[in-house]
């Protein structure tokens, strides 16, 4: 190798090392924020529905604070190299996505779109070749939501809220129908999708338990009429 070439390669490699270190710093930040949010959201399982709004309000500022980290990342990653570096933050990002979809679900009972999450976390379209929210990461976040909702179905009953499991059940079934439309190859997303059926089964069991014992309003109302919902 001639010296000129050696110097050139060294230049490239030194730059990569520098970029990696800077990204790592930001990823640590993002990771901290993601953990904070998951920590707060974990309390959902022990919070009465009336007390939920303030809890969710305490997550929102953390979600918004991801803007800084994302824009820092956008300034560090060189153009067209998004896919080169994204693995470094994928895990933290998926957790952040989970937090965003969870907050939205508990607020509006709806699935926030990819674009919605992307806006919440502060991604900008012009950064698409440096930082972006790919469908795969979004879908991972949504699957985490289903995983957590199956717990919530159980825990809400424990807290005396018998309607929650029914709502969750309808929502999750539609999500499952959505996931079934995708042609997934044999990867992590596919494996996690395959495991969704256990979450659905768990939720259905809860719904079954509460309806059988006529604990939900709909089944209470039909108490007088012969049979009720269950026989249908």
């Amino acid at each position, binding site marked *: *190798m*001639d010296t000129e*070439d050696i110097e050139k390669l060294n230049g490239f490699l030194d730059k990569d090392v520098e970029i990696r270190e800077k990204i790592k710093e930001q990823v640590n930040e993002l990771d901290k924020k993601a953990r904070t949010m998951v920590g707060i959201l974990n309390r959902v399982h022990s919070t009465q529905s009336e007390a939920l709004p303030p809890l969710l309000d305490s997550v929102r500022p953390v979600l918004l604070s991801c803007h800084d980290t994302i824009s820092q990342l956008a300034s560090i990653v060189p153009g067209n190299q*998004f896919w080169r570096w994204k693995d470094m933050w994928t895990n933290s990002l998926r957790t952040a996505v989970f937090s965003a979809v969870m907050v939205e679900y508990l607020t509006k009972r709806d699935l926030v779109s990819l674009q919605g999450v992307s806006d919440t976390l502060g991604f900008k379209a012009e950064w698409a*070749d440096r930082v972006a929210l790919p469908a795969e990461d979004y879908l991972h976040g949504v699957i985490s939501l289903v995983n957590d909702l199956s717990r919530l179905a159980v825990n809400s009953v424990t807290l005396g809220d018998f309607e929650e499991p029914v*709502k969750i059940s309808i929502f999750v079934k*539609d999500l499952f129908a*959505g996931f079934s439309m*995708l*042609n997934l190859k044999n990867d992590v997303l596919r494996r996690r999708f395959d495991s969704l059926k256990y979450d659905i089964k768990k939720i259905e069991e809860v719904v079954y338990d509460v309806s059988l014992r006529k604990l939900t309003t709909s089944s209470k109302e039909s108490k007088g009429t012969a049979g009720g919902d269950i026989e249908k």
Partner: protein
Amino acid sequence: MPTPIQHDRSVLLAHFESFRTEIDDYNDRRERLIKASRDITNLSKKVIFLLHRIALENDDTSYARAAKRGFAKLCEVQNIYAGLSHELAGDRYWRYQRQVSPGLQEYIEALSFAHYLQHGTLISFQTVQRSLSSPDGVPYFSLTVSDYLLGLSDLTGELMRFAISGLSSHKGGRAKATQVCAFVRACKADFEHYTPFVPDLRKKQAITSQSLEKIEDAAYTIVVRSSEYDLPPEILDDIVAQSISRFSDRSQKHARGFEDGLGEDDAQEGPC
């Protein structure tokens, strides 16, 4: 009263519909690139065989002739890359790097071998990038340092074969083997510097060391035999040929032992 549903099922499903398109698009492109990469690997391997075959022909111009034919044949690979450039445009190269790299490294191995036969030097990063650019100099994609180094690392294995088979079948073989030995040694030293930066290079360095050792053994034979007696070249050739046949028995044993240990990566090992 039915439980109120807040979300709109059809909107939700429409989202997933767009994900399906996106995921299908990704998977299809990935498949196309895997296929192309396999074709490139195949073509490049053929070029390497071609280079060995012609370079071993026993005359003065065989190296240059081999290089010329090799470069011509590598144009086919370059044309494949030209056709792929839109699949690898923008940030796509990095997204599909894992699919592209194997073929690319094989191509660099073939190209650098042809370059060595022609010039006796290591091909530069710039030259490889230029070979992967359109006639007016626009790169089909940006070459990475890691593919460049890993491709070159495979070259040392080819040079080992080239040096050792040249010993017995080419009249300038002994002098060439000594040159190759020095060259591979220099390569190994240069690459060592990069091992912390390029994953996989360390493993390839181990193989380079093995190749180097084989060439060194051969170079040793040359020196020892020719110093003991003042022999005419034809007789020396005979002696070296005998030594080679003994040597290759031993080196096969070596190669087997290595496979038991580290396993894979023997694109460049194999019988000399």
